[in-house]
């Protein structure tokens, strides 16, 4: 395999792998996004910007509080 | 405070060695396996005497590496059943003591294994001994490094179900430098290479020191999560 063939193979594998990985992330997140009917809100932009803005816990554990006597 | 750590560590090591003495797993199974690995190398290299002699240091350490991984596996499998892991967490032993105790027991079993493997190397691969002191230093320090690293990764994989495959995958890249340094040092000890062996022993010492420090910090949290 002459050097040009090898070089193009190198570029192909690198760009292909990055594209495949990007696609897999986007499709997996779209699938979960549909399943939950939510997207990740815009406010969570770049990770270093978004501080501890984890979705708050739903108000207390749902359902009946442990029964009172 | 420090003596208490070592007293507890001694208790843990004694327990592990007592279990080994009662069950003889290492003596009856792991050592023969180590020797078997060496013999199989001869088949692989077509009993080519000079090749085997050249490769003897590396073959020795590969034998230690794989047989040693089984010793580590065994050391933590013992802690698995019957709620013993819970009992250990409640036991009152400090994590550092458990770490040093487990590592010490692994170290002792490995040294016994290595004596057998060294005899095998000398007999099977017809290896001369030009610097016994270097040989002992390399083996002792390298094995200490392996035992400490093994204790850390053994605890890391304690709670994981697929441990048989995960432990070697995690452990071998980490002990690769020990295999590398140990082999080069043994080449000098066996008089195969003229390169100085002692600087490799220096490297092994640094690695051992680093993993001893890490283990004392990481062992507690690791025992927690299993």
């Amino acid at each position: 395999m002459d050097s040009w063939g090898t070089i193009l193979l190198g570029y192909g594998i690198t760009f292909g792998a990055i594209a495949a990985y990007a696609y897999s992330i986007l499709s997996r997140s779209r699938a979960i996004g549909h399943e939950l009917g939510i997207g990740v809100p815009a406010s969570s932009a770049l990770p270093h910007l978004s501080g501890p803005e984890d979705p708050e816990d739903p108000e207390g554990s749902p359902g009946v509080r442990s029964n009172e006597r | 405070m420090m003596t208490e750590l070592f007293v507890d560590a001694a208790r843990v090591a004694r327990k592990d060695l007592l279990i080994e003495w009662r069950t003889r797993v290492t003596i009856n199974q792991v050592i023969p396996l180590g020797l078997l690995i060496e013999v199989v190398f001869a088949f692989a290299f077509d009993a080519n005497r000079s090749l085997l002699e050249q490769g003897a240091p590396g073959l020795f350490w590969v034998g230690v590496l794989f047989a040693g991984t089984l010793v580590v596996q065994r050391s933590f499998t013992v802690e698995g059943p019957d709620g013993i892991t819970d009992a250990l967490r409640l036991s009152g032993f400090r994590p550092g003591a458990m770490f040093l105790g487990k590592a010490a027991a692994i170290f002792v079993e490995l040294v016994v294994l290595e004596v057998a493997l060294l005899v095998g190397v000398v007999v099977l691969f017809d290896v001369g001994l030009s610097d016994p002191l270097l040989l002992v230093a390399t083996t002792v320090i390298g094995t200490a490094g392996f035992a400490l690293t093994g204790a850390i990764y053994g605890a890391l994989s304690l709670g994981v179900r697929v441990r048989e495959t995960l432990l070697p995958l995690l452990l071998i890249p980490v002990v690769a430098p020990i295999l590398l340094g140990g082999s080069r040092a043994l080449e000098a000890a066996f008089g195969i290479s003229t390169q100085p062996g002692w600087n490799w022993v220096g490297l092994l010492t640094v690695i051992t020191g680093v993993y001893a420090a890490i283990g004392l910090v990481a062992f507690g949290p690791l025992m927690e999560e299993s």
Partner: protein
Amino acid sequence: MRVAAAGVDRLRGFMAPVIDFEDTVVLLGRFPALAGLTMSVDPGHIVLLRGSNGAGKTTFLRTCAGLLPVSQGRARVLGFDMTVSRREVRPHIGLLGHGSQLYDDLTVADNLAFWGGAVGADSADQRAALEAMEVSPRLWNISVQKLSAGQRRRVAIAVLVARRPRLWLLDEPHAGLDRRGRDLLDGLLGAAAAAGATVVFASHELDRAEVVADTVVDIGGGRTLAATSLPRGTAGEGTGPDDD
């Protein structure tokens, strides 16, 4: 609900509850074994946990022992906050689980020496513990795996005795014990509670358990459903009605 002596009790005085859980959620993997459990137990009580399998009894005991992380809600045991410092409570705990918690390959004496030695129990304490559970000296140098299930259970309890815990947490303690073993265990629990320790145990053998316990708590679906106090058969002061 609260398991408490009605009036101020001379021996124990009004002390903080040994176990104080409120809306506690504990996950096993992703399964909420405790789903918002609320319960509090005062010192010196022997509490029986009643409930079907999978109700959360074992998880509750292991959470009290500081072995499981609390995902939500509040949980304090012996004054330690289980969400922050659950490791500090452990030396004071005596947990008897389903497993024997013994090294099968070691002898009875080896096990006592190891587990007892960890908390500083010397050979005399170890012997006393074995004698308390009437484990015959003939068996002391036999490896645990050769013992019968009942004998193994007695040795496991002997280890607990040697540890002298402030909080006993027992999961089906009577299972595997013969009649004599059960009598010994009940006596030990009564004595421990009288000496100020607290006992919480799960059991299906209600006839046996209700003789020992002074309170029964029903657990279901990872939460407490009801708590009723029992007239204590053994010696011990009567407990007033449960206040809440």
